[in-house]
């Protein structure tokens, strides 16, 4: 039975040997040599140090193209023209499905035709040396971003390739991303990833790990996201990770977003072991964007404003072309600069908004309910607790495509635009908290002159892309 226990060293080696044999580039990984390589990198490429010592929120975009030289050019552009502080390398879909053969075909075709035949950088196929060529070419720290349920080989190669930050986790890269991967399976795979990061950490090379906070990106109630962040942080810490960046996706209500980021940092510090340095990352709105760059810039700016107030350690930016999918590099850089301008104009201002402490208190109480139920479900073991709590529905994520989560919980905005829970299903939550949500949603229903119903949920899902925060009924809307 899988439990929250550190993988023994010999088991680590055994799995490492096994997964590295899955693709020829695995051969080139040499742990000791990789440690030396990381030590040779200059201070401004040491991801965890740069992130943890920054005096204002660092900005990071999303970006990945198949060919090495194109990826270098893209990241250089985002660093120089976009003034990104941290850079990403987003991995292609075939690699996420462990289809290295198909990724190879795509990469070769990209090299032949010069076209982007993959939707990201196939780091496994590029192998250790080309990863290092990327690391060396770019004058800033780079994180691996993907969405891979089984990211073991990707981790082995990118860690040896000089990357010092790795997004994802067994819940956050499972529940929102795939339909049929079991939680037990992804937890096992990610224990290896974390254990490998822990092995580097033990040798003085702190690999930063970043659970994916936005989850399904669609009106996720803060406490659900935070509980899952804490669980993934705990799992990583058990395996020896010491630099953990907990994530949270903007819901668009400034008070709730600031409260959530505060709660995320506080509960992260509280629940994770003292030896872990906990930082936070704020994702600009991950839901549907307006099909209009001008309006999209408004959405992005509200994210920048929230970041200026909450001051997370990192912000993942969006581009004005979010609606249409992968942005041009110019649009990507534009999203970075819009965000930077708003943050830099607002961050020195004292903006203390009433009600943040109360909202934070509510989020913390909710999160503790969820953490308690996980603890109880697992009889003290967070791995078993997580699996069983998802199974019973005591832990759930709204709009989860995965069979591993019920997806029965439904959120809706209250009259102030804060995300509340409309349908609790079997989510473990104290009754008094449920009453608070119910009362807040009831106030909205009164304002709108309609019953609380799934119509609110549906309206809220589309609201921001339609130009509003709250999905009010049409007839009560515009003049």
């Amino acid at each position, binding site marked *: 039975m899988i439990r929250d226990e550190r993988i023994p060293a010999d088991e680590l080696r055994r799995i490492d040997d096994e997964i590295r044999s899955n693709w020829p580039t695995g051969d080139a990984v040499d742990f000791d040599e990789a440690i030396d390589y990381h030590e040779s990198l200059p201070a401004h490429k040491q991801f965890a140090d740069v992130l943890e010592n920054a005096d204002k929120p660092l900005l990071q975009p999303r970006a990945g193209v198949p060919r090495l030289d194109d990826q270098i050019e893209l990241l250089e552009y985002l660093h120089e023209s976009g003034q990104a502080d941290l850079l990403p390398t987003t991995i292609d879909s075939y690699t996420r499905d462990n289809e290295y053969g198909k990724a190879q075909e795509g990469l070769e075709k990209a090299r032949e035709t010069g076209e982007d035949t993959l939707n990201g950088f196939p780091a496994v196929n590029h192998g250790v040396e080309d990863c290092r060529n990327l690391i060396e070419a770019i004058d800033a720290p780079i994180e691996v971003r993907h969405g891979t349920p089984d990211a073991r080989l990707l981790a082995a190669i990118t860690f040896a390739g000089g990357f010092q930050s790795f997004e994802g986790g067994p819940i956050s890269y499972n529940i929102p991303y795939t339909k049929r991967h079991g939680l037990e399976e992804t937890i096992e795979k990610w224990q290896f990833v974390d254990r490998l990061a822990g092995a580097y950490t033990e040798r003085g090379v702190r690999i930063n790990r970043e659970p994916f906070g936005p989850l399904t990106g*669609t009106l996720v109630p803060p406490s659900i996201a935070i509980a899952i962040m804490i669980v993934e942080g705990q799992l990583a810490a058990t395996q020896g990770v010491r630099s953990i960046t907990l994530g949270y996706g903007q819901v668009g209500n400034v008070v709730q977003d600031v409260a959530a980021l505060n709660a995320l940092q506080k509960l992260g510090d509280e629940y994770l072991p003292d030896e872990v340095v906990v930082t936070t990352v704020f994702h600009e709105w991950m839901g549907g964007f307006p099909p209009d760059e001008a309006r999209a810039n408004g959405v992005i700016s509200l994210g920048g404003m929230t970041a200026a107030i909450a001051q997370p350690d990192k912000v993942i930016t969006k581009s004005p072309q979010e609606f249409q999918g992968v942005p041009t590099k110019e649009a990507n850089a534009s999203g970075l600069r819009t965000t930077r301008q708003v943050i830099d104009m607002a961050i020195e201002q004292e903006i203390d908004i009433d009600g943040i402490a109360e909202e934070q208190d509510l989020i913390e109480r909710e999160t503790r309910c969820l953490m308690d139920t996980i603890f109880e479900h697992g009889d003290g073991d967070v791995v078993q607790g997580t699996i069983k709590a998802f199974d019973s529905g005591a832990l759930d994520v709204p*709009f989860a*495509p995965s*069979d591993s989560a019920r*997806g029965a919980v*439904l959120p809706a905005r209250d009259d102030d635009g804060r995300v509340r829970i409309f349908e609790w299903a079997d989510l473990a939550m104290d009754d008094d908290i449920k009453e608070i949500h119910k009362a807040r949603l009831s106030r909205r229903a009164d304002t709108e002159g309609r019953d609380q*119903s*799934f119509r609110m949920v*549906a309206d809220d*899902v589309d609201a921001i892309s339609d130009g509003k925060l709250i999905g009010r009924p049409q007839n009560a809307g515009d003049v």
Partner: protein
Amino acid sequence: MSQTVVLGVIGSDAHVVGITILEQAFSAAGFDVINLGVQTSQEEFAEAAVAHDAEAVLVSSLYGHAEQDCQGFHDVLDAEGVDALTYIGGNLAVGQDDFEQTRETFEDLGFDRVFNSETDPEEAIAALRQDLQITTTEAERATISS
């Protein structure tokens, strides 16, 4: 006894929000909803319809490839002996300028009703009640007891 509907997103489409809301709406309206979730194959729809003796199969598609994904769907249903109403809704064609044309395309494929992405769940429920000849009163009773 309440009526059963099978619901799912066809093909490799992973858009989950729409069917989540449809599931809620049909459940609240008194139907038994079998939600197959995203990335559901034609065969899975057919098997579920048989297994649950479904009155209706509701297909959702939002990523623009519905026409390909539904080619031969009604043959598969027939082969499995499914005798149910079939509805489809969503963004059924990339750049659907003329919805009437899209409707015709999918009616030709064998669907009983075709809805665009602007359709309220209530509209689909009303249509299904009409097609299944459920009186509003019965349905309302179901809603109240749900």
